């Protein structure tokens, strides 16, 4: 890969403080192109932007700008490019990986005012929205037409669609309905050069390279999104869920594989371990079986005929796999009750522990039993508890490590615990992040998942879009220097086929 300009190094240190003179000059220029109320530079105004939902990582930005129009975004980016100022785009600030944590010498570009649904075409089943629109607001607007936007991250009440683009967000139904990348048709973006590009279209295939796929999940490091065209799907007429108990977590994992082997792709398939059900039950009173080592929630949706047929097939598989108890939701409120514990697992963790640290690795499903045993060992090793919540259908783990942020050693152990889980994910043939992104949080784990040459390929993509390295610098892809410092070897994806091949 060509490394003429090296955007990996420029501005990678997001803690580097600007000198006050430069800060004054930058704010001055921004105030020339934006109304006074759109440029925040006093500490008390900037404070709400110093972190996102990963609050362990904080940094005060040099300034915050809140444009109202795409033309203003273009002007802001041109000014930042001219003055060599890093830009961190921000949606609702719900990132769990520090993706929108500010840069000390940079500007936070808040897209909060881009909050309008520009068009909703029920006949074409598409909506054109601005990036600050909340995920759930799209489905709410589509509801009168019996349509909805499928990806449903658990923060969907608050998270913005622009942030979903940055992270390629998933949700509990993505096994059947896909991730953000499968549900977005087109983007309008502004490059760091201030050029407006239309990527993708309302048609299904577009000419040229698939830049839509590259932009989705690029964590704000390639361009700033100003408009999004999403696909809308017909809302399923009915959804029902089965709640099944297992006396052994590995049996529960086997049941998940058996359902897939039966040719069923459920709308959702979630697992919680006993520690999690014990934590959530007093909180939500969902009626979970507290004697079970693990419970599975398996959802079927579609027409009433379809759901009835699928539920009976799921039921048979669960019986065969030795579940100790099972219930099928008889109405919508019961179905929502089944889900309430899963959706409240994070707050419940916050209820039983001062703080929790959420991991997001993905593994092949067959490795689940081994992973859970390894996590149990790590709980002893690091002297910290861990609740296991799992998007079982697609192998995405969310272990919640319980710690106390007031005790620096507890946080240090939590970080090491998390990193060890993620390294095991790579060793088992999985990935360090399924849906939360790398951000600032998992930079070191990237060194384990990718070789230096592969990391250079990511920087090659970055260079093609942003040769000065100004968009969200220091996030997403670690510098080779950082990996050298981290000192852990790149693991070549576990027991995968080429393990015996010589590497040149």
């Amino acid at each position, binding site marked *: 890969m060509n490394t003429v300009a090296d955007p990996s190094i420029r501005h990678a240190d997001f803690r580097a403080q600007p000198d006050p003179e430069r800060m004054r000059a930058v704010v001055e220029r921004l105030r020339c192109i934006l109304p006074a109320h759109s440029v925040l530079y006093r500490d008390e105004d900037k404070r709400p932007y110093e972190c996102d939902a990963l609050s362990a990582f904080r940094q005060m930005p040099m300034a915050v700008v809140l444009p109202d129009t795409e033309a203003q975004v273009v002007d802001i980016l041109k000014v930042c490019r001219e003055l060599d100022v890093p830009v961190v785009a921000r949606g609702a600030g719900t990132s769990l990986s520090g993706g929108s944590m500010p840069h000390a010498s940079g500007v936070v570009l808040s897209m909060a005012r881009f909050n309008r649904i520009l068009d909703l075409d029920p006949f*074409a089943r598409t909506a054109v929205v601005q990036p600050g629109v909340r995920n759930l607001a799209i489905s709410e607007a589509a509801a009168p037409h019996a349509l909805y936007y499928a990806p449903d991250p658990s923060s969907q009440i608050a998270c913005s669609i622009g942030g979903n683009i940055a992270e390629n967000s998933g949700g509990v139904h993505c096994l059947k309905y896909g991730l953000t990348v499968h549900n977005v048709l087109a983007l309008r973006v502004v490059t760091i050069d201030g050029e407006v*590009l239309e990527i993708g279209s309302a048609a299904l295939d577009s000419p040229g390279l698939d830049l839509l796929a590259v932009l989705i999940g690029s964590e704000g490091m390639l361009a700033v999104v100003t408009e999004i065209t999403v696909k809308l799907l017909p*809302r399923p007429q009915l959804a029902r869920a089965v709640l099944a108990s297992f006396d052994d977590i590995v049996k529960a994992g086997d049941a998940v594989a058996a359902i897939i082997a039966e040719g069923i792709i459920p709308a959702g398939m979630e697992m919680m371990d006993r520690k999690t059900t014990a934590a959530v039950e007093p909180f939500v009173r969902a009626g979970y079986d507290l004697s079970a080592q693990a419970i599975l929630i398996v959802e079927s949706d579609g027409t009433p005929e379809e759901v009835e047929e699928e539920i009976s097939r799921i039921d048979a598989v669960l019986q065969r796999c030795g579940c100790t108890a099972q219930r099928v939701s008889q109405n919508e409120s019961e179905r929502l009750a089944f889900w309430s514990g899963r959706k409240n697992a994070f707050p419940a963790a916050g209820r039983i522990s001062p703080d929790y640290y959420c991991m997001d690795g993905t593994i092949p499903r067959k490795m689940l039993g081994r992973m859970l045993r390894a996590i149990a060992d790590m709980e002893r090793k690091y002297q910290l508890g861990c609740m296991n919540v799992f998007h079982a259908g697609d192998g995405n783990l969310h272990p919640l490590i319980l710690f106390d942020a007031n005790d620096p050693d507890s946080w240090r152990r939590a970080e090491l615990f998390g990193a060890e889980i993620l390294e095991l994910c790579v060793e088992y043939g999985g990935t360090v992040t399924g849906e939360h992104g790398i951000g600032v949080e998992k930079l070191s784990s990237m060194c384990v998942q990718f070789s230096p040459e592969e990391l250079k390929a990511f920087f090659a993509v970055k260079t093609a879009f942003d040769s000065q390295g100004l968009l969200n610098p220091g996030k997403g892809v670690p510098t080779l220097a950082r990996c050298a410092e981290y000192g852990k070897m790149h693991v070549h994806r576990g027991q995968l086929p080429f393990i015996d091949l010589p590497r040149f």
Partner: protein
Amino acid sequence: MNADSLDAVADVLQSLRTTIVRAARDRAPLRIRGGGSKDFLGQQFDGDLLDTRPLAGILSYEPTELVITALAGTPLAQVEALLAEHGQMLAFEPPSFGGPATVGGVVAAGLSGPRRASVGAVRDFVLGLGCMDAQGRELQFGGQVMKNVAGYDVSRLMCGAMGILGLITQVSLKVLPRPAAEATIMFGCDASQALTLLNTWGGQPLPISASVVGSGSLVVRFSGARAAVDAALSRMNHDHAARRVPDDAAAQLWADLREHRAAFFSDTGRALWRLSLPSTAPLGSLPGEQCIEWGGALRWLKSDADPADVRAAASAAGGSAMLFQGGDRSAGVFHPLPAPLLALHRRLKQQFDAPGIFNPGRMYTDL
């Protein structure tokens, strides 16, 4: 794969590496080719043959993980046969146009078949891939799991890139179970009415898995749970007096459409255009005959119209036009890109393939 096969694979990779490194040194373009089933696709260009077929074999397949990983030169037919044994499929139904298509070629060409509008395209099923860059280094992106947001999505960038960014060496594809039930219906219907029906149905919970409009009729396939398919059949019968196509004939019909064996595609006199349009786009007034798939979003056009007129009409409708086969190819094959987008393509090409050896010019001239 056993140890001997893996040794053989290592030898093949070494030989490909030697070829690539030499080509890069001499700045001598390479023409990446698998089974050659899509030789006709894209622009003509000169390059020494780089045959991927020796790089063949299925590396892993576990039905319950819904993933298959195969070397690039593995025949598509071999992959599909193995999946069928386990009641699974490549849901995007990639066409091979009757030729010996390979898995690498399927991903590089990025073409999907009749089921695309309901399940997604090739790119939606690419979980990860391995490639070799212009320095002969092996790189891996993505992986074998459904959810993976570590790093930029280089695997999907390589999908449909017509080989211009590097040599794909292996791919991991998501697979799906074959539907429990499937049935096809047809009834007489003009094209404009068919577009209205298909878009209306698209917003309703009907298990449509494919559609084709042409020669005065609308043909629709339903796939899913037995009960859902039965319900759709009785509704079609009631609302449109639709006739059920016998299963054997239906399988033949969809295969012929996918592989371009259907009568519509046999006319070699005129240019065959592939128009990708919003499904609601009106029919327009371009001369020639159309065959419409994907609920209205894919329109094959046989026409003698001026290429500039076809492209202008596609752009005006919010889509694009690709000169699929035949016709005057002097003005390029793929839909022209706006200047800033083309410049970005050039920068990506420069970053990934600085010596310019991988399929230069196959997608766009100078790329």
